[in-house]
């Protein structure tokens, strides 16, 4: 049973517009949520995280929103740039500090110039 779900395998957005990537989870024991970006032939790169005690975290063009009651989080990228084209993974963990990450299947974002 998948504990972290990314239901959209792919997303296509025009340059300059907003990209919204969604993620749902089932395990209420998750306390931290992370987004990773992955380019071909590279390992996943940490993008942004959020603790379950918050509902929003912002870092430059990237904002993550958490709706704990709905067990849903989303990553907003504004404005989207062609260099943002990559696979985005949502991940969750039970506690911060070397606990295993549980990943979704990923969403491939294509930003069209």
């Amino acid at each position, binding site marked *: 049973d998948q504990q972290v779900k990314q239901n959209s395998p792919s997303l296509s957005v025009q340059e300059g517009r907003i990209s919204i990537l969604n993620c749902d989870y089932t395990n209420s024991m998750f306390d931290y949520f992370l987004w990773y970006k992955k380019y071909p032939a590279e390992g996943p790169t940490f993008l942004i995280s959020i603790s379950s005690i918050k509902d929003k975290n912002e870092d430059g063009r990237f904002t993550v929103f958490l709706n704990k009651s709905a067990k849903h989080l989303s990553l907003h990228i504004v404005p989207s740039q062609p260099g943002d084209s990559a696979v985005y993974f949502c991940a969750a963990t039970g506690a911060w500090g070397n*606990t*295993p*990450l549980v990943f979704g299947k990923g969403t491939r974002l294509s930003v069209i110039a």
Partner: protein
Amino acid sequence: DAGVTQSPTHLIKTRGQQVTLRCSPKSGHDTVSWYQQALGQGPQFIFQYYEEEERQRGNFPDRFSGHQFPNYSSELNVNALLLGDSALYLCASSLSRTGSQYFGPGTRLTVT
């Protein structure tokens, strides 16, 4: 400052063979985690090593084993390879106190 490095980059093995993958953690990191990413899936946690011992393990059979050396580098061994073991194997390193995991580029294993 070198990040996480993995070797080899690609590997082709035959069913039933054994394979060893290697990982050097980011400088200053003492914890190494291994993940398996099958095609079209997200990475799945295999196990984690700290102080040369397996500290946590995911839902993988005993055919998957590992080792951590005194310099914190690590090996992942897979015995009796199956076609289903074909995947990208990712190594992530972290510092035990902070927990942020940094991933290497991975080793692409193909079992024929």
